[in-house]
């Protein structure tokens, strides 16, 4: 279904207001170019991330449900770029729809009766399914010719499948198709949905380093010059914890921005911990 020119509630989440500002900026610029209006959800609250579901079942559903309550009041579907936030919001949406007693429990907790009128969408599904590949192709002024990438989806966008309903839990294709539409050479690889270690990064970086090196090594073996992702936690882990120190990782929205000829693209790429501009310059994709 193509739904051009629509307006969505925008849930940036905490990372996009901090360490992943380039994801926030590139998301907003690319959506504007594609005719999607994003209105930041007023007074949104943290989704609770992995700490919510680890420590407290009430907060696990209650924190993201609070955001869904705000979204229902604004009456628009919610666009979420961060895979971790998306996962928590989907868990709450699913529990409210499917699990016995949750709706009543949330009514007591949040003084609000949920109607189930808004849908939570990840940015990838919004761009691929609601905007469509044809429109993406029509916006390309600088095809990413010569750029060989692998698409890294991570865990939280694709699993649990009965909650996120995204593509395929172990072999997703949506992001591959978006990157192909802007002219990149997308290579097949077996680590599309491997785990980067997520929130273990702050305290157990010994574990995360091993996982990240495995992912980077596999991307190189597939023949890719860079990894493209959609999750701020994945990108941070892949940049911070790689032993190589020079292997580029991009948000897909940054590369869409380059292909659409958006001037701000270079500014986003300069915000990375690992040099991301040299590769693009060597391919004459940035001047």
């Amino acid at each position: 279904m193509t739904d051009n020119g629509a307006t969505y509630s925008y849930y940036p989440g905490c990372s996009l207001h901090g360490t992943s500002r380039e994801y926030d900026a590139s998301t907003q610029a690319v959506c504007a170019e594609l005719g999607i209006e994003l209105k930041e959800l007023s007074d949104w609250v943290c989704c609770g991330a992995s700490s919510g579901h680890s420590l407290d079942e009430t907060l696990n559903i209650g924190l993201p449900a609070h955001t869904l309550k705000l979204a229902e009041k604004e009456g628009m579907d919610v666009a979420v770029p961060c895979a971790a936030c998306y996962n928590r919001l989907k868990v709450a949406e699913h529990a409210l729809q499917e699990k016995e007693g949750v709706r009543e429990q949330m009514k007591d907790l949040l003084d609000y009766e949920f109607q189930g009128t808004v849908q939570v969408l990840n940015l990838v599904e919004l761009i691929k399914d609601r905007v469509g590949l044809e429109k993406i192709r029509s916006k390309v002024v600088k095809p990413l010719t010569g750029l060989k990438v692998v698409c890294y989806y991570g865990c939280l966008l694709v699993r649990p499948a009965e909650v996120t309903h995204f593509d395929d839990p172990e072999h997703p294709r949506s992001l591959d198709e978006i990157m192909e539409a802007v002219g990149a050479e997308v290579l097949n690889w077996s680590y599309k949905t491997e785990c980067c270690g997520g929130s273990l990064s702050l305290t157990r970086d010994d574990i995360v380093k091993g996982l990240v090196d495995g992912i980077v090594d596999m991307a190189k073996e597939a023949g890719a010059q860079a990894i493209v992702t959609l999750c701020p936690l994945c990108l941070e882990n892949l940049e911070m914890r790689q032993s190589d120190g020079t292997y580029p990782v991009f948000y897909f929205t940054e590369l869409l921005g380059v292909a659409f000829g958006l001037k701000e693209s270079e500014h986003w790429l300069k915000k990375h911990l690992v040099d991301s501009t040299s590769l693009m310059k060597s391919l004459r994709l940035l001047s």
Partner: protein
Amino acid sequence: MGDTNLLDYVIQKSGQDVLSCYHCQKCAAGCPVAPFMDIQPNVIHRLLQYGRDDEILKSATIWICAACETCGARCPNDIDIAKVNDALKQYAVREGIKGKEKGMPAMHNAFLSGIEKRGRMHEVSLIRELRMKTGGLFKDMKLGIKMFKLGKLPLFSEKVKNMGEIKKLFEKARRAQ
């Protein structure tokens, strides 16, 4: 150890039929962090079936699980094992049981206490609070300075306007535990 049997608590909280596990070990084979666990994921289920609660609740495994859900996607009995681990962590926290893994519970506590104060996570505050508790204040300092210079670590935190509702939510959650 509390007034609830651990097995019943887990089944009730997680909604998962842990007794249906027949130990095919698909979860352990596909788990990306299994090499760092002291008890393999399927063995947690066996211990749960045997009532060896103490070993489970003190294990590093329940905290090391990254909740990537690879196991849940592959389990032939449709057990969402990450959800079982959540119930085990929540039980351990409720009963004040300290296990082998210290860092992750401290991280989760610091994370949630930040949300209770501001409604949003602030990376600098989270790292400061965590390192005060666990030590290693200068760990990752080089990375932090680099990120700060790139404008990726704002020093000032954001706070939601309607903090009254957030406080109420946390108070009600505490009462429900």
